[in-house]
């Protein structure tokens, strides 16, 4: 009998070893960083020098929306409706990818799909976008003066998201620092931004700031009254050496459909003629953006009709973090605020 038991010992030992090593790997604590006040960390974040790096990142969303089937052709239609669908897809589904940053005007963003990839490559004035699913490339040559701050800033990377949130958070935000965290193998300060108002859906935003370089490594947004994050984007690995310069020299593959796009004339690249500019009501966390979309009949889109529910004065696309109200007269109100605030803003 004892002999029988010893023969089963390896089968019992192996899971213990596996669980043990997994636990050890994840329990590696953060190094001690010198104490800093929240203001110091904001300064560290704002004053960071340009640092070449390459990193893998991961974005997860749990907004309480049904996630859209990725890769499936949705009855999106063309133009604005397609843009709405694309934005919904970006919000509701999880993504991972890589970022490479070389010289100050060199960057490459890769967003991975299961058997595809979308790339954005900025090399000085040359900007390329490539989609392997379509085998299509878009090329823009920027005029000289516009090259300093370009496209990658408008993309979803942990850096860009953190910078935008800090920019938007003003005096209506309370700053605090939690215990140090470890992100992508680097010790980081955990800067917490808590809205000073109850009139927003955002409970708190936590930004992990690299203790050494001041680079934002992870952004976590938690909705009010929730314990699990509604949205998180962060690096899973980070390498602070300069990436291979060849990565930024993009030549579209043979057979790819290449579209040359004229550089945007407006400095921000927003085509004001076609897209109505949103008006913003309120400030800080309570602000509501109003877009006049009466030109396109949004509610007739089957996808939107499915995702929205009828409420007083229109249809609501409700998530844990953001509410979108499409009024009967065709205005779209967006804000990280409760529905009542949107309805009040619509009545104004």
């Amino acid at each position: 009998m004892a002999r029988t038991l010893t023969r089963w010992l390896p089968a019992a030992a192996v899971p213990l070893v596996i669980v043990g090593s997994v636990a050890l790997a994840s329990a590696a604590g953060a190094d001690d960083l010198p104490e800093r006040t929240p203001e110091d960390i904001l300064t560290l974040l704002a004053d960071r020098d340009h640092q070449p790096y390459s990193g893998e990142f991961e974005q997860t969303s749990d907004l309480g929306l049904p996630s859209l089937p990725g890769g499936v052709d949705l009855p999106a239609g063309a133009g604005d409706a397609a843009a709405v669908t694309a934005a919904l897809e970006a919000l509701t589904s999880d993504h991972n990818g890589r970022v490479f940053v070389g010289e100050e005007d060199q960057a490459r963003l890769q967003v991975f799909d299961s058997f595809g990839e979308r790339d954005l490559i900025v090399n000085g004035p040359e900007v390329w976008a490539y989609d392997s699913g379509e085998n299509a490339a878009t090329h823009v040559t920027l005029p000289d003066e516009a090259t300093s701050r370009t496209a990658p800033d408008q993309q979803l990377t942990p850096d860009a998201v953190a910078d935008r949130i800090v920019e938007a958070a003003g005096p209506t935000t309370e700053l605090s620092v939690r215990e140090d965290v470890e992100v992508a193998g680097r010790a980081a300060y955990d800067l917490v931004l808590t809205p000073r108002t109850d009139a927003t859906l955002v409970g708190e935003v936590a930004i992990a700031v690299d203790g050494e370089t001041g680079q934002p490594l992870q952004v976590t947004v938690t909705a009010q009254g929730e314990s699990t994050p509604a949205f998180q984007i962060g690096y899973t690995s980070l390498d602070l050496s300069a990436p291979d310069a060849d990565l930024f020299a993009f030549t579209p593959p043979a057979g790819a459909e290449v579209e040359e796009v004229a550089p945007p004339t407006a400095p921000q690249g927003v085509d004001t003629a076609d897209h109505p500019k949103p008006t913003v009501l309120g400030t800080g966390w309570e602000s509501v953006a109003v877009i006049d979309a009466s030109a396109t009949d949004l509610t007739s889109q089957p996808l939107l009709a499915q995702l929205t529910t009828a409420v007083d004065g229109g249809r609501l696309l409700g998530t844990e973090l953001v509410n979108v109200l499409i009024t009967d007269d065709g205005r779209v109100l967006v804000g990280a605020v409760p529905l009542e605030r949107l309805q009040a803003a619509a009545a104004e």
Partner: protein
Amino acid sequence: MPADTRTHGGALLGSEVRVLFRRWRTWAMLAALATIPILMAVVVRLSSEPPGPGEGPPFLDQVTNNGMFVAVTALVVTTPLFLPLTIAVVSGDTIAGEAGLGTLRYLLVAPAGRLRLLVVKYVSACVFCVAASGTVLLVGWGIGSALFGTGEATLLSGDTIGVGDAVVRSLLVGAHVTICMLGLAAVGLFISTLTDAGVGAMAAVAVLTIVAQVLGQLEQLAWLHPWLFTHHWLSFADLLRAPIVWTSFTENVLLQAAYVAFFGALAYGRFSTKDVLS
């Protein structure tokens, strides 16, 4: 370990592999695997217009530029079902087949030891894993370069690679798929020690691969996904990016090693305590 037992183990493995490749069943399965790249290449060749981007299985539109991508496309198509089916047949048969034929006790009469027999059986199943994915890869290369020639190929990132790089990349994809099958073979070895009915063990392994892949599709079980042996089966797309993303490859190696260790230990526990009556 004394020299004579080591040579004995080697001789046992040699005879095992010879028996494996003397069976018609083995060759029939390899031939069935080989038809998939051939079929794909011939159909694309005969069709009047080449497949556009995003049409058909992944990388099919690459085939006309560089025939070697037939091998990669064939691996994408065979990995979820055909390839694991053949592995299920071979690994499910390892112990149960001998027991069913009544030859197991003769194997154990020789001073081989049960552990050594188990190891030899597993290694010969691994040899078949290499042969199976190698067949798809080599036949794919052969038929692809014969029908379409070799040339530049486009990676998922939009970068263009030459022929030499394409060989390396498709070899890596083949290695990844083979490693994925090693974990499955260990599961099959364990199931094979549970029964004397070879067919039952094969069916159980085949069903497990399907169940694992179905579980992998369910969002509600996201916490379980990294632990499924099928989790990284199709993540070899990461080997076709520029530069290569090694994360999923190394994660898969660790995952499959864990499966081999755990199910190998379970198989040892079961086989060494089992009453061999047939």
